[in-house]
């Protein structure tokens, strides 16, 4: 491929007034003062969201913290098929399956942990789930915690959400 030559426009020479700088400073001061006054008078136009009190409304497809769905009787919908943990690119889902006393259910998760520190919120687990048992529609980010252990969400926490 031939190397093309692209002419980049040189900045034009500054005028006398601009080189003096003082006038430009005054102009700049005008801009900042304009913002200041505007924002003092019309506080509601400031784009800042005052977080804990005001929360951004998450779009419906936002992928937040996971939750596990329940059956009408309150037991987890999850059947421990491992599809989510297989799909998970971050390998953050740990499942231990168990034999349910109810032969209709047969298999259920004894343990179902998601390591939120490793999760990349890709949503592949939700896509993979054949039972619609896991969703990411809580609209929440990972909250800060003091220890890593607190960010490994167990099945009870996930069912709670």
């Amino acid at each position, binding site marked *: 491929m031939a190397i093309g030559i692209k002419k980049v426009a040189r900045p034009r020479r500054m005028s006398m007034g601009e080189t003096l700088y003082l006038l430009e400073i005054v102009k700049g001061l005008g801009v900042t003062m304009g913002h200041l006054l505007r924002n003092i008078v019309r506080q509601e136009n400031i784009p800042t969201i005052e977080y804990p009190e005001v929360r951004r409304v998450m779009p419906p497809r936002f992928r937040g913290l996971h939750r596990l769905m329940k059956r009408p009787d309150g037991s987890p919908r999850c059947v421990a*098929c491992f599809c989510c943990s297989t799909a998970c690119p971050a390998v953050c889902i740990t499942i231990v399956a168990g034999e349910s006393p109810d032969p209709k259910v*047969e298999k259920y998760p004894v343990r179902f942990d998601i390591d939120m520190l490793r999760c990349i919120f890709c949503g592949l687990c939700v896509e993979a789930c054949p039972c619609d048992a896991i969703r990411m529609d809580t609209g929440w980010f990972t909250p800060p915690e003091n220890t890593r252990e607190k960010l490994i969400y167990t099945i009870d926490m996930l069912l709670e959400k």
Partner: protein
Amino acid sequence: MPNFTINGISVDVPQGTTILEAAKTAGIEIPHYCYHPKLSVAGNCRMCLVEVEKFPKLQIACNTIVTDGMAVKTDSEKVKQAVTGVLEFLLIHHPIDCPICDQAGECGLQIYYMKYGLHKSRYAVEDKVHKKKVQDIGGQIILDAERCILCSRCIRFLQEVTGTGELEFFQRGDHSEISIFPGRPLDNRYTGNLADICPVGALTSKDFRFKCRVWLLRGARSICPGCANGCNVEAHFKEEILYRLKPRQNDEVNKTWMCDPGRLEYKKANEARLLTPVNRENGIPKAAPWEAALSSVAFRLWEMVEKHGPGSVAVIASPQFSNEELFLARKLADEVLRTPHLGFSLRTVGDGFADDFLIKADKNPNTRGAKLLGISEEKFDDIVQNVADGKIRALLVFGNGIADLSDAETGRLLANVPFVVQIATNEGAVSRAAHAILPSASFVERGGTFTNHAGRVQRFWMGFPPRGKARSAIEIITGLANRLGAGWKSGGEAQVFRAIAQSEAPFAGMSYESLGELGQTAGGKG
């Protein structure tokens, strides 16, 4: 030799070959469920339909013998439609509970649906016939009648291979289901094979139930360490945990079967493992780094030989170890320690049951190998006598236990020896008494060869590196010998086997290449 064409490829096959078998030689896959190479042909699943020229209707490939000049098509539109139709029928009442089914991932229905089906279901879910799920029918098997496609493989297996015939079809039409007779559960030692031959999830293993999904498992070609028969197996593991053993086809040894106790042999590679070298100081076991452990063991052995003569040291080998390891153990005893006391003790398990099919009374995979390598069993009684008389000052024990001695007996016997070293994989009476423990690798954590009861030398492969700090026994023995001044070159099992082939007559001319996957029979008598 009839010559026939399949999809335009012309092949010669022996007289009496079925189209299905013949297609395999031409590299063409014909889908099938009821056909199994080691069972009689039933021809009831109709999955293997092919088009044969001049035949008005499609034929089942599993039961049509190839004749000269036959022209077969497996890829015509007609065949495709027929196969998809058959699959749709088979799936009509299927519960599609793949998420909870252990077969998922290796299920014939899943595989063929993706290849030949991909149809939309035309049957309403409410109309499906429900049958009994989760039935414990004895043995290692759980039955889910709903998933069954009625191929009858299991029935034929129980009639033709074990001859026990516990399973049978019941009911008619779409209410047909497979079941045991009331009050007569599976009663043979080969039930595990039912889970293997069932192409779907109707018969699944109780032991493997819900433990792991099959697509997460990796496999290593191996040899069952359970008895002298040396069944060829595939060891399935995830990370460092073994989950199951599956038979690997070897028509000379186990065809495609294995016994139930053998299937559980994997457990000891997971549980109660010795994972770090241990030195006992003043009666308290202490984990030691390898270098220190090996050096101190070597020093104590040397000390005993120097002070009390080589006759004060004894080596008890074990046929749980590979030919390579036994060979080195013998060299260690003969050439380095120069002790006359070298024998091997046989592991015993359960009632020592044996039959005329696969299960052998000798529960060691390499007894024949030990004998061929010139280690004698008779010497073992001699060593025990010497130990009891207090003549042995240092004892090197291979293996987790000593012959059929109970824990108490083992403890009493070893109390007579001032210095006991153990090279083994699992905790037990010996490890509780030993003064030094050198943990060795389990059968999937190293490679090597076993010689089965019939003198067949068979390879097993490493699946994953030794767990914890364990090491292969080859390394351990070489390390000890070199610390005692032997100056051996350290090498892998292949190198040791080459040395065996050179110096041991029964193994002459063998190499890992010539053994291949299925093994080779050793010459000479043991």
